[in-house]
């Protein structure tokens, strides 16, 4: 199902929450809505689901204007951050809720419940009380519940937000496999850059109720729309000069032996080491080292910058700066 969000705006309690938000999601495409908290991404999702009426703008599904349709007539599935399972029904009762209110015959309903639970790897959990589920299991049941009515569009609101550590990574890769298997059209809200890049074919970055940039992860990383986006993505080599800024990707900075700079810090970040280097002319750069033998703080080094990894962007003047 194709989703078109056309210039929607939302005003709540005389406060503007969304302003002129537009994007498209092609059938089978996965779009991640990425942004800091309060940027309007969850509200955007609620507008698409029909839970929040936009003050202006339209929502189209396969070209049909559904702006005034109530949520139950939209053929859209929604997964909340903390599952929100029906406490008065067991796992199968939760998963079967959608088909049941759609008056699907009993045997077909059972088949759909089993199928959906199998998809999320909980084939044997149908009879369990939802209060006995762990956080990860509850989230899988919520996903199965959203999939059971076979929606044309799946919306995920911080689906991994209440999970942590290895569990989070495992469910993230499971989600990816599932999306590819079912060829689902997905809009996925997150504040985590890694999650957005892993699950989104394209990423829409939101800030202060507006869309800052929509692009594929690779494109975002190599050509951020402005210095704010670059910093939000986690880049530290952003040097402002008037109303322009120079963004240098850390993987374009190579640390070699020499005597033009000093290592300030070397922090391990998983398999890589992030080096902060002070150049003798005063500037600072971050470099990513992947070797097994890396310089230590205080060491004298030299840096080489690959010009292909340097891009000049405008400076965003719209609000508070996000520190890297």
């Amino acid at each position, binding site marked *: 199902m194709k989703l078109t969000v056309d210039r929607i705006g939302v005003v709540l309690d005389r406060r503007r929450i969304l302003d002129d938000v537009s994007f498209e999601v092609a059938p089978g495409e996965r779009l991640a809505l990425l942004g800091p908290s309060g940027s309007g991404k969850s509200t955007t999702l609620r507008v698409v689901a029909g*839970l929040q009426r936009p003050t202006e703008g339209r929502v189209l599904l396969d070209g049909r204007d559904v702006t005034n349709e*109530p949520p139950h*007539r939209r053929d859209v599935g929604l997964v909340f951050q903390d599952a*929100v399972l*029906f406490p*008065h029904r067991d796992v199968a009762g939760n998963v079967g*809720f*959608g088909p049941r209110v759609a008056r699907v015959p009993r045997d077909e309903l059972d088949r759909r419940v089993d199928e959906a639970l199998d998809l999320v790897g909980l084939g044997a959990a149908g009879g369990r009380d939802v209060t006995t589920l762990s956080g990860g299991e509850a989230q899988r049941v919520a996903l199965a519940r959203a999939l059971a009515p076979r929606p044309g569009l799946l919306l995920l609101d911080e689906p991994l937000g209440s999970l942590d550590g290895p569990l989070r990574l495992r469910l993230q890769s499971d989600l990816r496999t599932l999306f590819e298997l079912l060829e689902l059209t997905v809009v996925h809200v997150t504040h985590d850059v890694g999650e957005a890049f892993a699950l989104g074919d394209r990423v829409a970055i939101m800030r202060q109720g507006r869309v800052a940039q929509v692009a594929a992860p690779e494109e975002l990383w190599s050509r951020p729309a402005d210095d704010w986006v670059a910093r939000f993505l986690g880049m530290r080599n952003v040097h402002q000069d008037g109303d322009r800024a120079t963004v240098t990707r850390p993987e374009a900075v190579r640390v070699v032996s020499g005597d033009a700079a000093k290592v300030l810090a070397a922090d391990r970040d998983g398999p890589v080491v992030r080096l902060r280097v002070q150049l003798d002319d005063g500037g600072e750069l971050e470099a990513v080292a992947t070797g097994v033998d890396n310089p230590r703080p205080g060491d004298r080094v030299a840096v080489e910058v690959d010009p292909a990894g340097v891009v000049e962007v405008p400076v965003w003047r719209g609000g508070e700066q996000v520190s890297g």
Partner: protein
Amino acid sequence: MDRDRRALAAGAAIAALPLTYLAVFFGWPLVAILKRSLVVDGTLDLPLDVLTRGSTREIAWFTLWQATASTALTLAAGLPLAWALSRFRFRGRSVVEALVLVPFVLPTVVVGTAFLALLPDRLERSVWAILLAHVFFNVAVVVRVVGAFWSGLDSRLWDAAATLGASPLERHRAVTLPLLAPALASAASIVFLFCFTSFGVIVVLGGVRYATLETEIYNQAARLFDLRTAATLALIQLAAVALTVLVSGRLERRLGGARRTGRPALRPSGRERLAVAAVVGAGLGLLALPPAALVVRSLRVGDGYGLDHFRTLAEETPALLVVPWHAIVNSLLFASWATAIALAVGIPAAVAVVQRRRGLDVLLMLPLGASAVMLGYGYLLAFDDPPLDLRSSPAIVPLVQALVALPFVVRSLVPPLRAADVRLREAAAVLGATRGQIRREIDLPLLARPLAVAAGLAFAVSLGEFGATVFVARADRPTVPVAIFRFLSRPGAENVGAAMALCVVLMGLVAAVALVSERALVRERPR
């Protein structure tokens, strides 16, 4: 080990006063009724003749029927209000919430009289009048009990159901009702109990045609002096009440287990705003009608309006042995004493309940289910001769009123006591506070607000208490509800007018009490 034993002893000491009070002023009167019903000339004699009498069966059937119908109507009327007040936030919501609760603290006699003033003569003494008065009186229970539960439910459950394809109607059927089931069962059983044992409303509105167990107990004991029949009817009523409590307790446990995850209420949007406004407007309008009619009727003199009925309250009347305004003084005095007793017993009782004495909890709620008329009658039987000959003592009135008010006191003190964060006390202790200092600095300030509410409730309940008081109050010391009843039992427009005027005075007193304890509520910042 030693500390445990000391704590246990302290717990037992705290529970001793409430237990003694309940044993003497609740248990003993019940035993007296049992004895009067089952024992004749020193031998056991089952009152089978009373049980099998056709009139008994008829009265029991009507009691059950009207209570069931009243409960169903109250639920139907209360649910929309509970929905509007618990799911949404809008300007003036807290005022509406307070106004909806007002009918519940109004004395039953006043409610009955207000419907006399409101309804056309044709409907005045009909089943409909009784049912409507019960709905008016009990809507607050549904709004309170169901509303509190409803606002604790996560609003995203309905969002989830909506995105899964459930229409608004289906959402209510498949999500709202099952989730609310425990609260509905709880509210329904409370309303059913109140309607089953309702006295003031039925005495005023039922006339001679409609009798329930409660009014018939009064009729048999106070008018026909058939004490054995009265005692037997009281036993039937007690059994029915106990059965209801048992069944509803079991039902609530079976339906329970819903997880409560509060989410802030939303501002209503679009069509919801219309629905909320309609529900709140209609609810307040209907609830305001009976009291308004009462005030209007109390001012109507012949074809015009005036204060004549209020003026007659200072004049002698054949309806009473005293000047009517003495009843007001009596009421205030009795209610003050009753409040003092209810607090003296209720505070240690609440502390004991919080210390996990569940048995005591159930025991303390029993007076709520036991009918007031039965209690009053039991007092007459039990405290008739030494060692406790209270029959002619004025103390008997506040003693029984305190018993009726006790469950309300305990109910308003237990939740805040339970919620008092242990860590606050621990923090104070770590900062060097002694036990006494902790009590003074932490416990008392935190409990000031609930104590004011408990005292206000106890005072209001005692002011309006009718069923028990009408038995035990001496003819030369009537309370206001008793005086209203005496006026209404006599023919003549001037007596009805005096009754209406007294009702307005009583309503004003209760409103003043509610306002004072409400102010105590407001002064403390809500947490």
